[in-house]
């Protein structure tokens, strides 16, 4: 039942934007003030969060090693799972960030009759995760056509590539990533609903981003393919460009569905820095991933260690010799005569 509240919040956000723009005439609030505030919260919150993390020391060298580390020359080692140099760490980080490599290693534990304990690799999470993230990346990049003037060639090229195979008739002309992002999101949601262990650990703030993204995507798709009335893209681009050049203009008669879309996006931006979505920045700062497994080659010093000078027995005796002799403790060197 932990999904009821976040679902209700997303529906409420959509209803607020609809009523605000269609009935109360608050277009300038939802079209100008809220997007600016959301962008400000997103950028400043993101920086604050990363700088906050950067201020935490890492006391120990804690890379996760999932393969043979560097040892004897004849032992074949795993450069990506136990990297020892900066280059190898960069390779590992690249695969983590771009291919979600640690999800690829996901295993499912079960007990078969016998009883036999079995581990099977399952890659559904990896698959739908990749599907969702890359579709989202493409959708956001394609949106730049609404935000950049003139539209750079790469952006319009993406637009033509995305959906070229379905481009035979006007009825079928659609973006492939629209279907894929929705598929990815619904599968990720279904995973939280159906797998019992995952359902048990799912909290409201796991469901909220999923519902919010589903809301954004479905309002976008509705706007593009179904509720076209009042969705004049040239006017919307005017609004977007006005926002980016700090001379906001508010074209009249943009449909409420657009304000719903924009308000949900603004909510996402504002929520982002304070949520688990910060894994976007956090993945780069994970010590278990970004440290080299070289603790047997280079000494790692805990950055908060106090500066303790070595204190040999000889200097200890030098310091306390008089007291030691007075107490009758044997000393190696007598007090100087005189």
């Amino acid at each position, binding site marked *: 039942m932990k999904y009821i509240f976040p679902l209700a919040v997303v529906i409420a956000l959509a209803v607020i934007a609809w009523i605000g723009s269609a009935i109360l005439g608050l277009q300038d609030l939802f079209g100008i003030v809220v997007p600016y505030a959301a962008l400000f919260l*997103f*950028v400043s919150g*993101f*920086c604050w969060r*990363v*700088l906050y993390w*950067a*201020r*935490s*020391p*890492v006391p120990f060298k804690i890379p996760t090693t999932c393969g043979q580390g560097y040892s004897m020359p004849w032992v074949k080692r795993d450069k990506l799972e136990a990297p020892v140099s900066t280059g190898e760490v960069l390779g590992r980080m690249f695969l983590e960030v771009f291919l979600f490599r640690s999800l690829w290693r996901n295993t499912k534990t079960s007990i078969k009759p016998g009883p036999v304990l079995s581990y099977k690799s399952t890659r559904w999470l990896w698959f739908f995760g990749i599907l969702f993230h890359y579709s989202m990346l493409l959708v956001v990049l394609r949106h*730049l*056509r*609404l*935000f*950049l*003037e*003139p*539209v750079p060639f790469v*952006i*319009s090229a993406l*637009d*033509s590539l995305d*959906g070229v195979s379905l*481009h*035979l*008739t*006007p*009825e079928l*002309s*659609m*973006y492939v990533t629209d279907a894929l992002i929705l598929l990815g999101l619904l599968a990720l949601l279904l995973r939280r609903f159906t797998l019992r262990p995952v359902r048990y650990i799912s909290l409201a703030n796991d469901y909220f981003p999923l519902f919010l993204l589903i809301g954004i995507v479905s309002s976008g798709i509705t706007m593009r393919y179904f509720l*076209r*009335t*009042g*969705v*004049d*893209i*040239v006017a919307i*681009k*005017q609004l*977007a*460009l*006005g926002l*980016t*050049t700090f*001379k906001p*203009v508010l074209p009249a*008669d943009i449909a409420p569905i657009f304000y719903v879309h924009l308000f949900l996006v603004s909510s996402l931006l504002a929520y982002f820095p304070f949520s688990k979505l910060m894994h976007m*920045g956090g993945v*780069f*700062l994970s010590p278990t991933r970004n440290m080299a497994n070289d603790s047997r080659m280079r000494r790692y010093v805990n*950055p908060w260690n106090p500066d303790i000078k070595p204190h040999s027995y000889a200097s200890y005796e030098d310091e306390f010799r008089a007291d030691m002799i007075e107490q009758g403790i044997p000393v190696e060197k007598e007090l100087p005569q005189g």
Partner: protein
Amino acid sequence: MYDSGKIIPGLLIFVLLITLPIWYNNLSNAGQVKTPEPPDKGMLMGFTFANGQEHPSAAEMRAKHMEHLKIFHANAVAKLAEQKDKKMPTMSCMMCHGSKEQFCDSCHATISEKKVPDCWECHQKP
């Protein structure tokens, strides 16, 4: 702060990417989009098609011209199939909207709309 030599540049790159539209548009001096010319009101006013239907408003056409074109196209194809002489119908949008550059491309280029159907595979570009 630890590793500031790596974290600060990384964060800076991120902020630059996120604010791309802001500095890009201000540097390119694009400022405002060129609003396409408002369609000549006099021309649209009271225009009715041969079948007695009124021409939809400009706002309606901007948002939903594809739906109109789809129906228009389907009707024309059906009519052509009925006709004995197979003479191409001459009634067309292009009789008034005589220029692709002016009526199609001015908006399509501004928003870089690439999902255009294959009208121009058969119809001549005016």
